[in-house]
Structure formats: structure tokens, C-alpha cells
């Protein structure tokens, strides 16, 4: 039986930044995007907790809004941080998959 805890290893910060690489989005659009990417249901509190932190760290920025929905976009610094994190994840994934393949062949 797969461990439920594995599902929690998806970092909300990475998910939000990844969603914003597809262009500026407002809160609801980010939630729907993450849901379609990973199947994870984000609560509005969780999303804004992450957005506030990312905005404070300068990784995303709020754009001017025409209505109540304010869009956010990823900054250059945010893109750099995300690239680094994804490359590390890819490296770990590649090693893990290679070793799993080796285990399967023996």
C-alpha cells in the first residue's frame, strides 16, 4: 500500500511558481492550474500563505488588476530559484529512476 505521506512531499511553493511560469494568474486560476497539474486541492488559505511569502521574498509580484481578481507573475529571481529547485529535483528523480531500473533488472 503506498504511503500517504509521499503525497505531501510536493512543495506548495514549487507548485505555485511552476503554475506562474505559464503566465500571470490570479488566485483561483492558480488553484485550478495546480489541481489539473497534480490533482492536489489547494485551499485558499494555503495558496495565499504561499503567495504572501513569495511576494515578500521577491519571487513573485502582484500586477495591477482591473477587477477584484489580482494577477501575480513570477519574477526573474523567482524563475532562477525555480530553475535551480527543478534541476535538483530532476537530478534526484533521474538517480532514483535509474537505481529502481537496476533493482528491477536484477
Amino acid at each position, binding site marked *: 500500500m503506498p504511503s500517504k505521506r509521499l503525497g505531501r512531499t510536493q512543495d506548495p511553493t514549487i507548485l505555485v511558481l511552476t503554475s506562474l511560469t505559464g503566465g500571470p494568474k490570479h488566485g483561483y486560476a492558480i*488553484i485550478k492550474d495546480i489541481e489539473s497539474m497534480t490533482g492536489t486541492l489547494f485551499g485558499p*488559505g494555503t495558496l495565499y500563505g504561499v503567495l504572501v511569502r513569495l511576494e515578500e521574498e521577491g519571487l513573485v509580484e502582484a500586477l495591477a488588476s482591473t477587477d477584484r481578481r*489580482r494577477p501575480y507573475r513570477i519574477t526573474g529571481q523567482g524563475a532562477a530559484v525555480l530553475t535551480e529547485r527543478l534541476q535538483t529535483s530532476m537530478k534526484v528523480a533521474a538517480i532514483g529512476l535509474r537505481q529502481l531500473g537496476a533493482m528491477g533488472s536484477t
Partner: protein
Amino acid sequence: MRRSRVEIALRCYPHWWTERYGEEMRATVGDLASEGRSDTMIALSLLRDAVRSRVRGRGMPQNYGLLAARTRMSITAATIPWLVVAPFVTVITGQVFLHSNTSGARSGVSYYFSFFGTGVLGTSAHGYRHPPLSPATQVLGVSSQMLSWLTLITFLVLASGWSACRDGVKHSTTPKRRRLASTSRAPFIIVLLIIVMKIIQSDLSPHDFRETKNGQSIAIGGHPAAAALLGDATWTLAIVGWILAIALAIWIARKVDLPPLALRFGRSVSVVTASLTLLSFFAFATWCMALVAQGQQLPDVGTVTASYPHDALWFPVALAFAIAVTVSVLGATNAKRSWRTISSQRLWSSQTN
């Protein structure tokens, strides 16, 4: 009814957060609700983030007014829990009776219980004796003594903090500050009154007890009825003073713009109080464990055990104490953090300019 749950959760966010993110959050919540997402789940998610925003203050604008208000509230959060819990802890651990299962010491008579040995008051013919205590009873004695000392030290620390706070009120820009400074003198006056009343009460209390032929004790001398009345009045005054001090502290934290020096001192007081509250909690936890251990041990012949009239309340008070310690430590951490931001950026000078 269901809608109001989300509304209540949204109102739990701090004011600055609602100003900045409130509208867009409402739009997002509206979109989620219209697609059929459970209101309860939305409200729980909001509530968790609201508490986090209040505790961490993440995304808060870095201006003196907001940070000073946050420092004041954090100082209050660090100090009030002790004020709330301390009377209950004192009532539970303060009054002890030692019992012996031999005829050498009388059950139900107050004995002197200290770090350095336990004087048991037997009959007047025997005078003071030092009977053996079980290990659990020794731990009970040491932990309750520790609690008494920690309570006294915390009280003195808070009194010095209150004094600095009064000074801060006098030098603040708050309207009616003189009246408020006079009102904030009330807890000191009440403490002095309680001490005076206690002295008078001890003077009015019976000076001696005499045993009758049928084994009953009768009081000799003094004015027992007046002493009892004064005792009730002291308790009433203590409760009024206690509630007044808490209410005043919260009111000052919310309304009075204390000067930076008072904030800095308040930060130090909050850190010391939180540390003392944590130590007191450890002492109380030890006391609770010793109480349970003493209840489970078989009484040895000749050993003395301790009992406390209100010890049945140890569990709810321990639970309340644990919550109080958590709030106090979080408050002190936030007070330290907020003050560090204010002082590192010298934000008060931007306010005076």
C-alpha cells in the same frame, strides 16, 4: 449560516492583511464556492492561514505604527498567560497537608514543607520532628517550593514591566494619558492593600489552639469572625485586582502608543516572563507527576505523604498551563522579532520626522 463560517474566518485575518489581500481573497473564495467547494474546508483553510498571519506577521508593511502595535500585542501575549494561570496553580499547590500513618503526627495539620527538611508539628509535647518522606513526596515538596519561588520572581519581573509601562503611558501621545496612568496605579495599590489586610488578618486570627478532653481543638484569643470576614474581603480584592490588571494590560496594548524605550523594556520583560513561565510549567509538570506517583505507591510505615485540597484539578490546570506556555513563548518570540525590525531600521525616527 454556512456562508457566515467563511466570513468569520476572513475576519480572523489581521487588519493590514485584509487591507492588502482581502478583496482578491474574497474573489477567490467566491469562485471556489460557486464551483461547489465545501464552505467548511474553505473556512478551515482560511482560519489556519489567518492564525499563521497573526503569529508570523508575514507580508506586514514595515512601518513603525504597525510594528509597534505588533510588539505591544506580542508583549501582552507573552505576559498575560502567566497572569491567567498563576492564581490557579497557586491555589492548587499552595496549601499542603502532610499525613503520617503512625500516631506520631496528626493528620490534617499544616506542616512546614521545604527544600531543607520538613518540620512536622506534632503535639506540643513532641515539638518539631523530621519524619521520613517518600521520594514522590520529596519531589512534591521541592517542585511546589520551586513554583513558589518562580511565582515570586515572575511577579517582581511583571511589576517592574508594569512600572515601565506606566511611565510609557505618561510619555505617550494618547489622549487622557494622565487618567490612564493614574488608573494603571491601581494594581500596585491593590497589592499593598492586600498585604496590609493580610497583616491585620493575622493579628485578628486566634493566637493559639487548645485541645479539649474529647479531642476537639478550640481557638484561643483574637477575633475569628472578623479575621474570616477580612479574609473574604482580601480574596475579593485580589480577584478584582487580578482582572483589572489583565484588562488594563490588554487595553494599553491595543490603544496606547508607547514610546520606543518602553517597547524595548517590554520586549525584555516578555522574554524573561516567557522563560519563567516555561520553567514554572516544568516545575508544575514535575509536581503533577509526583502527585500521581505518590497516589500509586504503597504507604510505608512511618513515612509522611502530602495532600493538597484542590489537587483533583491538576489535569485541566496542566492543560491550560501548556497552552499558556505556548502562547507566552510565541508572544515573546514575536515581540523580539518585531522589536528587532524596529530597532535595526530605526523606524521610530521615521515616525517622529
